[in-house]
């Protein structure tokens, strides 16, 4: 390679390339990290909303059962079935969105839902519950109503409530599991953060090394010979000392040195 200008330009361009490169790397890594953060946040949001919808569906089923069995409102018989179907659909939806590792949890949730609804179906099959307002004035109470010995509250607390509690626990387990599955992803995120920082850090170290080299080369191949030439030229003109430059010179600086030498030599000969 010849030409001091070319050398300095290429040296300078190397630093620019390195800067661009380290910027590009950090951009790439930060972009990756941002994607991971989005994924974690999205997953967390989805997990919360699906848990909410599951709990809503369980509560709706519970309300329908209370109306049907405890308050003995026969109009809620269909509501129980509709709520159960809605709940099963929601479980299916949440299962589709969840990781395959949670399959066992959803299987057990399906089983618990089935068992909870079985209790209600058994009640529906065993007797026909007529519409009975919760508080009937004695004058309006029929003989049939008075003779009905079905203890709705007792059935609810003895048969349905244990199933409902088990079901709620199941939903809770699904919620906990989906939240704890976020922890390895968060760990991955911290590793990605390290990966985003390290290349930039190393690029910076390399850039500092290159800058120091650049400074050193400019000093020893350009600045030092010029300073020495200037001093020696001055001494040579003033005190007639032979012009001598000991520093290593490159390209144009070397040519300059040789030209000065030849001018001074010609002057001495004349």
């Amino acid at each position, binding site marked *: 390679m010849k030409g001091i200008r070319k050398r300095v330009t290429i040296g300078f361009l*190397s630093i620019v390339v390195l800067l661009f*490169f380290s910027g590009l790397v950090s951009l790439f890594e930060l972009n990756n990290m941002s994607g991971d953060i989005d994924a974690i946040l999205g997953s967390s949001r989805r997990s919360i909303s699906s848990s909410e919808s599951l709990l809503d569906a369980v509560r709706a089923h519970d309300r329908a059962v209370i109306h049907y069995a405890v308050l003995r409102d026969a109009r809620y018989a269909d509501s129980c079935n509709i709520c159960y179907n809605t709940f099963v659909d929601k479980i299916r939806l949440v299962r589709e969105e969840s990781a395959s590792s949670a399959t066992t949890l959803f299987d057990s949730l399906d089983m618990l839902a089935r068992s909870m609804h079985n209790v209600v179906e058994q009640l529906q099959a065993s007797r026909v519950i007529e519409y009975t307002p919760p508080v009937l004035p004695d004058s309006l109470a029929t003989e049939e109503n008075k003779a009905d010995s079905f203890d709705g509250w007792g059935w609810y607390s003895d048969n349905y409530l244990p199933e409902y509690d088990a079901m709620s626990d199941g939903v809770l387990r699904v919620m906990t599991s989906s939240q704890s599955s976020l922890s390895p992803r968060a760990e991955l995120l911290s590793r990605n953060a390290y*990966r985003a920082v390290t*290349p930039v850090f*190393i690029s910076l170290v390399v850039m500092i090394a*290159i800058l120091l*080299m650049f400074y050193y*080369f400019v000093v020893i191949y350009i600045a030092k010979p010029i300073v020495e030439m200037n001093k020696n030229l001055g001494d040579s003109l003033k005190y007639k000392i032979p012009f001598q430059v000991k520093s290593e010179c490159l390209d144009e600086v070397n040519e300059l040195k040789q030209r000065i030498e030849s001018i001074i030599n010609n002057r001495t000969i004349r």
Partner: protein
Amino acid sequence: MRFSVVIRYIGVILLVLAAFMLLSAGIAYFSNVDSSYYPLVMSSLLTLLLGCFPLIFVPTTDRISTKEGYGIVVGAWIVASIVGMFPYLMWGGEFSIINAWFESVSGFTTTGASILNNIEGLPRGLLFWRMATCWIGGVGVVMFALVILPSIGKSKRMMANVELSSLARDNFNYRSQTIVRIVLTTYILMTIVTTLLLKLCGMCWFDALCHAMSACSTCGFGTKNTSIAFFNSGSIELVLVCAMMLSGLHFGLIYATITGKPNNIFRSEVSRVYFAVIGIASLFVGLSLWLSEIYPNILLSMRSALFHTVSIITTSGFATADCNIWPSFAIMIMIFCAIVCGCAGSTSGGLKIDRFLVAIKMIRTRLQMQRHPDAIFRTKIDGIVQDDNMMGTVMVYIVTYMLLILIGVFFNTLYGADLMTGFSAALACTSNVGPGFGDIGTMNNYSAMPVVTKMNLTALMLLGRLEIFGLIQLFFIRWWR
């Protein structure tokens, strides 16, 4: 000393490293673009830039002074170790800055000591880079650069001399270019043959190549957490024993033997002593293991003894068993092997058997002189009279080497290591063996060592690999002028 010239040639060596990083990135790419691909590509680009930069400014020179030669060689080892950290650091995992430095220095100096608890968790690209560092370090970082440096002419001999062990170059009677060619040809051929044999013994291509590179460089890095014990194969152990044993010999002698020259392995006194030490040490260790009932029969005892003796004496550090449970006598012999080590001009580190032989002969001469004070005795090796200056240098080297180990033990014990761990760590790192005894046994690693101890051990590795004086000189500023 012209620093610009030193920087230029270190730059050329960095280009060689960048090429190996790119090769490792290629392996990562063909392993389904594993997680080490981007770290290796990035490291390669940075190293390339760092290596190219001095070439823009510094013109070629055909004369390099001895000081500059030392500067290039020592500087190249240190810079190579720093640059070798880049892929580890970028990949992350168990590699903190200190751990990456330790692993990189351990690789380039072919020590084979590791801080990794889960080697099998590393992606293939990074595993290959780990092996590449020890393969490059095996014959010397500068040796690779000398092949692609036709422009430096007369300086090549000087740089080859600085890189090679002081005893090794005396055994070469060729021009410097021929020496470099002989060393590299022998090295590459041995690696290829070992790879093929390991493949035939049932290893996959990747494992075969990695273990061949590791065995021929006498490093001892493996691809499995349990080293060679993972394969549990007699044939694999036999191939590795042969590869390690040959790598512990002077490469010039191997070349001479292959090309049918008279100064071959069988005639050399040093190689005869080398084989004798291996034979006797293996026999004693084997008997000790058998008598202690560590192994059920004498054959298994001998097999394990031979493998570990060769592994330690060649400074490889491969293992098939936990040596910590061995009897003290066997451990003592292993420590002796770790001090003596292989021949000069090989890839093994340590004191070198050549120096051991000179020291033994000097003791014998001294005893003869006491019996016959007026007689004149000469110390000969292979029939050649050794001059007093060379013998003095050997003795100084042995004393300095022992002193260095003592200093190492002092620092290791100061930072909490027990005596056995501290001593074996200092010895294993100065001799570039790798595993030691105690907490850093064959089935353990250096991860639990404190940061200061790790730094101390990396300094010992570099001092041991550069035969002490080269590196020490750099600390004397007056020497730089």
